[in-house]
């Protein structure tokens, strides 16, 4: 590893600046350095006015997604060495408004999330935790999909979300899947109606952009395909 990195850093204050600019900085490297370490080093020692968002630093909270060398990534889980270059361009996550520098406004993301009724509604007849044998396929791959940390990487990578303002996008649809497939939930059909729209599951063109960038190795495309299947089953009256 070389002893320093050449960083091109996106800077923008919508309140003051007419347009964004790039700042060029040299940052010394150290072992196990992640992109989060890079931006923190810059903010602490080189330019204290830089803004970015972070919290847990271990890939659990999903606060620090950035667009690094042409791809959405979690800053805390992206090792500098894995980028295999000394030249690194750091930008905010695409497809979302910018608050300042690398901080985006997640509001549109969560507005769509809320549209699919993301909250669990328990069936009236379920009064206790259900008994589910580990080898039954009752949970299909719900639990795997529930590992989503809502970081927005997939949303930033999705070419459909980029061009269709209405499109619900992979994370909201993935969350919808986890509830629609959950037999304990009382409003599965209602939720399926929300996603069974042109701006819902049918806008996904199965390009797998989302799955390529997911830091949790989730494949939202799979959830979306399963939702499509259920939408068809509903039309022929089989999904209840």
């Amino acid at each position, binding site marked *: 590893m070389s002893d320093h990195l050449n960083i091109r850093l996106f800077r923008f204050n919508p309140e003051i600046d007419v347009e964004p600019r790039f700042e060029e900085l040299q940052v010394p490297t*150290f072992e196990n350095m992640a992109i989060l370490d890079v931006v923190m080093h810059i903010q602490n020692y080189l330019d204290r006015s830089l803004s970015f968002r972070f919290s847990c630093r271990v890939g659990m909270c999903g606060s620090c997604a950035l667009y690094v060398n042409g791809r959405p990534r979690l800053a805390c889980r992206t090792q500098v060495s894995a980028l295999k270059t000394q030249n690194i361009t750091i930008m905010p996550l695409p497809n979302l408004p910018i608050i300042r520098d690398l901080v985006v406004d997640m509001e549109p993301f969560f507005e769509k999330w809320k549209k699919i009724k993301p909250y669990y509604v328990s069936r009236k007849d379920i009064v206790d935790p259900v008994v589910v044998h*580990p080898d039954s396929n009752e949970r299909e791959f719900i639990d795997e999909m529930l590992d989503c940390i809502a970081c927005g990487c997939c949303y930033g990578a999705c070419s459909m979300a980029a061009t269709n303002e209405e499109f619900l996008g992979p994370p909201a649809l993935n969350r919808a899947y986890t509830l629609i497939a959950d037999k304990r939930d009382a409003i599965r059909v209602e939720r399926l109606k929300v996603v069974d729209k042109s701006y819902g599951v049918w806008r996904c063109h199965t390009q797998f952009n989302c799955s390529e960038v997911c830091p949790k190795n989730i494949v939202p495309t799979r959830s979306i395909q399963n939702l499509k299947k259920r939408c068809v089953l509903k039309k022929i009256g089989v999904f209840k």
Partner: protein
Amino acid sequence: METIKADILILGSGGAGLFAALHAYDCNPHLKIVMATKGLVGKGGCSRMVQGGLNVVLNENDSIEKHFKDTLKGGGFINNQELAWTLVTDAPKAVHELEVKVGCFFDRGEDGRIHQKAFAGQSFDRTVHVADLTGIQIIGRMPDQIFARDITVLEETRGLDLLTAEDGNRVVGAVLSNIRTGEIFLVNAKVTIIATGGSASMFKISAPSFDKTGDGMAMCFRAGAEFVDMEMVQFHPTGLIAGKSRLNGSLLEEGLRGAGARLYNGLGERFMEKYDPEHLERSTRDRVARSNYMEIMAGRGTKNNGVYLDASHLGAAFVEEKFPGMVERVKDIGKDLAREKVEVTPTAHYQMGGAIIDTNCQSSLKGLLVAGEDAGGAHGANRLGGNGICDSTVYGRRAGDLAAELASQEHVLPYDEAEAEKIRMRWLRPMTQESRENIYPIRDEIENLMWENVGLVRTGNKIKEAIGRLDALLEKAGRASVENRFIRQYNLEWNNIIDVINLITVSRMVATSALYREESRGGHYREDFPKTDNSNWLINICQKRKDDTGIELTQKPVVLNRLKWEEIENIK
């Protein structure tokens, strides 16, 4: 100043804050509830980072009494017994609610029922979990319940200080700052719930999320609330060593030791045989962490000042299946947890001490409830792994219930405008004064000072030295100014100055209490008083603010109302 009127103001959106909001709303949907949180909702704080799981009695062969005794034994018997009892009796309700109302789905065992795994210091395997990253499920689903209700959520909005009325005996809301715009405003509320999650982040090596800087505790202290056993800080034995990376000090969860992972020093000795031959690596956190530290200090550590955690003998397939999150994390530093030993260090993790509350989260000030890690007492001198998220869910629920009840009875009392303005001006100072005092070296100094002088092994002289230094640093941090004072929006440096002042405020309480307790117990170890002294120190140390920044200490004997001394003698 812009003013919002509310029935209930909640600060924080971890397990405690989220549950408080949910319960308050469900008790009375007509109430105006405002939840302000420093990060994005459900993303900040440590509940999100819970790995191992949550302790609860579900199995017929287990019992509430056993969980209670384990909690007291782990806590060195200075726990507030009522709080510990409430913790264990309400835990099944909290887990039931998480599954049935919130929709969580904990891992199942062979029999199809909720699986419970082994943690340290427990007489029964009672930790429910979702693999090894449980918090994602719990805190991933809670905000969705908040979205389903008419609750006002103010994201990236931090509490700065509490507002008081009636000669300072009642809290009537808080002054806050919107981090995105830099605007300072206030919420005038009937009831204020502090749930900002404490923080052990004043140490060089620590595990909590970066947004936690003891804000709630510092706010409570400045408002005059009473605290208990602030010297009790938990160090987790197995923090990952990752050099200068921010990953340094992040946790490798306790379930690994629960499953049989072993610890070795640099000489290859399984040193827990020496410190706790009966329980070995499954001994309680305080003991294992201190043993690690002693080995390192005695020169028997690894190259990078740690010890080795070895799970490889458990079988690579087993480790990969049961601990996928930990395997991934370790992979980030180029190591393979399933196949080789990994260097670990003790890491500051949790504060057992905190604001004094009763079983319904009522603090010593009217109108102020405190829940979760900000509150003290339930865990005594050492918290059991798995009792933390248990605490924030149990007490979050209770705080919400009481807040709804109080808010339905009371009126909004006016705040003192001069006080509000004074608070605003105080926190604006870093933006207006031109001292060029840089906050970052101050922060580094506190972290080193606390680690060296008030860390795992303490002595009177070193603590005294630290207290003197902390006083000076508090003053210095008060002079710090922001480099670019024209940018108020999302100004990290400005927020860091506020963070550091809060960290020092809490550190002073920790150090003052640590100096006072002349014995060793749980997380508090005094080299100059290495023994646990039950004849003199079965007491709780209370403190509150005196004058401007002074601290007044008092001591109270531990109330042994449920588990009597004779019984304790038997289970020791």
